[in-house]
């Protein structure tokens, strides 16, 4: 618990230190994540649980430490994802906008470079995104869709594992302000 407290205090100390990335990465990383989601599950259906666009959007939101930027990134990636899906445009957009906004808001208070915290954030925001998407589907679109909690929790856990690894990988492209 002391480590978490240390992380919190370190996050407070590091508040305001936003990471910068090459401009191409803002395009290529989401594009690669969307391509992965579009292409890979064709051959490996089990990988369809991976919400890589969400993880990439959360990462940029966390590391940019600016809720406005996070919301914008989430909106763009979500809309792009919606454009390639059978859903109406905006479902993923709104979900990811809110998720990335809150993620960026949290990054102002925590040390988001801690792997454990990244895992927990990945787990939490995946659940949040899925729940909000389900809520929008039921509330706005009136679709009778289920929300399988055990399956969603397992998927959240797996996405959190992938998030921890993916965030470490994307850290290589980071440039501190």
């Amino acid at each position, binding site marked *: 618990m002391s480590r978490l407290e240390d992380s919190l205090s370190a996050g407070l100390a590091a508040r305001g230190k936003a990471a910068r990335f090459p401009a191409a990465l803002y395009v290529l990383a989401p*594009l690669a994540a*969307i*391509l992965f989601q*579009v*292409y890979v599950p064709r*051959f490996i259906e089990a990988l369809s649980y991976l919400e890589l666009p969400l993880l990439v959007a959360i990462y940029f939101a966390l590391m940019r430490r*600016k*809720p*406005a930027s996070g*919301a*914008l990134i989430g*909106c763009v990636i979500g*809309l*792009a994802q*919606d*454009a*390639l899906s059978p859903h*109406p*445009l*905006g*479902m993923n*957009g*709104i979900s990811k*906008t*809110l998720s990335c*906004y809150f993620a960026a*808001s949290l990054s102002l208070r925590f040390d988001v470079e801690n792997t454990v915290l990244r895992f927990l954030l990945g787990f939490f925001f995946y659940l949040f995104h899925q729940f909000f998407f389900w809520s*929008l589907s039921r509330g*706005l*679109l009136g679709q009778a869709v289920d929300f399988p909690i055990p399956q969603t929790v397992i998927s959240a856990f797996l996405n959190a594992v992938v998030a921890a690894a993916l965030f470490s990988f994307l850290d290589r492209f980071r440039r501190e302000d």
Partner: protein
Amino acid sequence: MDSFLGRYRNLSLLLLLVVGQLLLLAYQVRSSQDVPLIRVWAVAAVAPLARGLESGRAAASGFFSDYFILRDVRAENERLKKELGELRLKNHFLAAELASAERAKALEQYRARIPSKTLAVRVIGAGVGPDTKTVFVDRGSSDGVQKGMAAITPEGIVGKVVAAYPMASLVQLITAQGAVASVVSQKSRVRGALKGTGGALCTVDHVENKDPLEPGEWFYTSGNDRVFPRGLPAGQVTLVREGRGGKEVLVAPSALKSRIEEMLIVLDGVHGLIPPPGEPPAEGVSLLPPPPPDGQTAEAAAAPSSNSGALTDADRLAERYRRLTAAQGVQLGVKGRVADFAREPAAAADPAAKKAETPAPGRMEPPRP
């Protein structure tokens, strides 16, 4: 207002984005129409990449598929090669076993067919030294093998035992230098001495230039050497030409055309018959009744001989001389009148003697002097 937006810039942007998307959603739901422009842009951005990915995947998949297929083919090829090698070895082994069994069977049949008492032996090695033309066989003096015994196969004579040890014997092949066998030709009854030359062929000495002999004619053992029973095939004439002291005759030993693996040692030889011309040499040792001598009927030849001891040519010659001297009233071994051996004995005078001339199978005995 500006200060409010500046203070709550993040929240304002969030609200703007969320409300904008909610309106977009509402428009789509209400009008049941899509927003094709955004989708077209998105698909236009992603599709080429997806196509490239698919092409790359197909190529990689094809490559790996081909690679693994080829690797499987190679592995299968290696496995089949190995299996083929094993089968070839097995086939060679079985063929050798079959050949050996066939040879052993043929040898056994031949052994049962010939009147001589024989012992089947197997070649276990070759004599030491270059071109020794000798082989070791797996039976020795403890099995009754003695020095001087003949070694034969169904194809013909092989040689003779030159040394008998308790567990093995050394057989000198007929092609060895110094090896000799008394032979007679099948067709023209030309007699001679078959001698080994150290090579693949043998010579037949003591054949006069006037003796009719043709290439292809078979020589059989005559039994006069008291080693090989009479009537065994010795070989076929390959070359005949006139020489100074007589004809030069080369004979290819019939038993040594291929490598010898098994043979028979003649423990107790019994003379056979020389087959008539045209008969296959394999039938050289025949159990048929003996053919009548020149000028004698088959019935007479079939009659039992009163003198079963007259077996060899020398025996018959001695018997003839005894009849001649008896007919002329001359006593052999006593000084005085000498018998005329050129005169033919009266045919009717001594019918028993005529029967005695009939060649019949019998044990090898030394001719009486």
